[in-house]
């Protein structure tokens, strides 16, 4: 994987593994963001069971590479992991993990925030709500 771990995954995301991946002797700060599915109730009184994610994977992977390159151009990034789920993500489960390491902590915070904001704005991934009592229980 080298210095970047970029993946669209059908399996559960391992936050610990992503954190360990970006650790490096050249880095003094690691920042990790985890996006999870937040529960809610719709206007019809149904509870959210999960979010189902799909991706235009061939383009999303190209975009993740581009995001990593742009982050490296702006900050002295040592290592970065950008991981996103496809498939069903239940409440409080991770849908996205951004992990980045830099020499100093301010850079890590800034790069991490920028990466998740850019991913949300640009990368070809979509979510669809799965509500209870729609034949998709659990």
């Amino acid at each position: 994987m080298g210095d970047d771990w970029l993946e669209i995954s059908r399996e559960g995301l391992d936050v610990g593994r992503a954190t360990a991946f970006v650790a490096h002797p050249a880095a003094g700060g690691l920042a990790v963001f985890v996006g999870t599915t937040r529960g809610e109730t719709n206007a019809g009184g149904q509870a959210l069971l999960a979010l189902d994610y799909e991706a235009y994977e061939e383009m999303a992977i190209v975009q993740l590479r581009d995001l990593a390159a742009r982050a490296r151009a702006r900050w002295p990034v040592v290592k970065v992991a950008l991981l996103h789920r496809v498939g069903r993500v239940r409440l409080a489960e991770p849908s996205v993990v951004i992990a980045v390491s830099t020499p100093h902590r301010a850079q890590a915070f800034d790069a991490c925030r920028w990466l998740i904001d850019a991913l949300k704005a640009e990368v070809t991934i979509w979510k669809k709500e799965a509500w209870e009592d729609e034949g998709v229980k659990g």
Partner: protein
Amino acid sequence: MIRIDVRLFAILRERAGVSQLPLDLPDGATVAIAAAALLEALPVLRNDLRVAAYAVNRAYAGPDAVLEAGDELAVIPPVSGGGGGSGGVGGGGVGR
């Protein structure tokens, strides 16, 4: 004439009932021309196409981008990756 491959995702795929379709266009056709042809082929997508972005061969492209035979044109509804709750309409950006 050129033939391109159109790919539909998420709400577009659900509404159209297909994930992929070929489109025959005049030589030198632009993304805008392809979008009009797509609307004619699948009028059910009228409202969704108004807020869709387009990508040619895996890179966002504007309406004036010129298409070539064999190109892959993806129609991209507002993206909504990255976690959180249900976003509703306009829950994400539409590309650079």
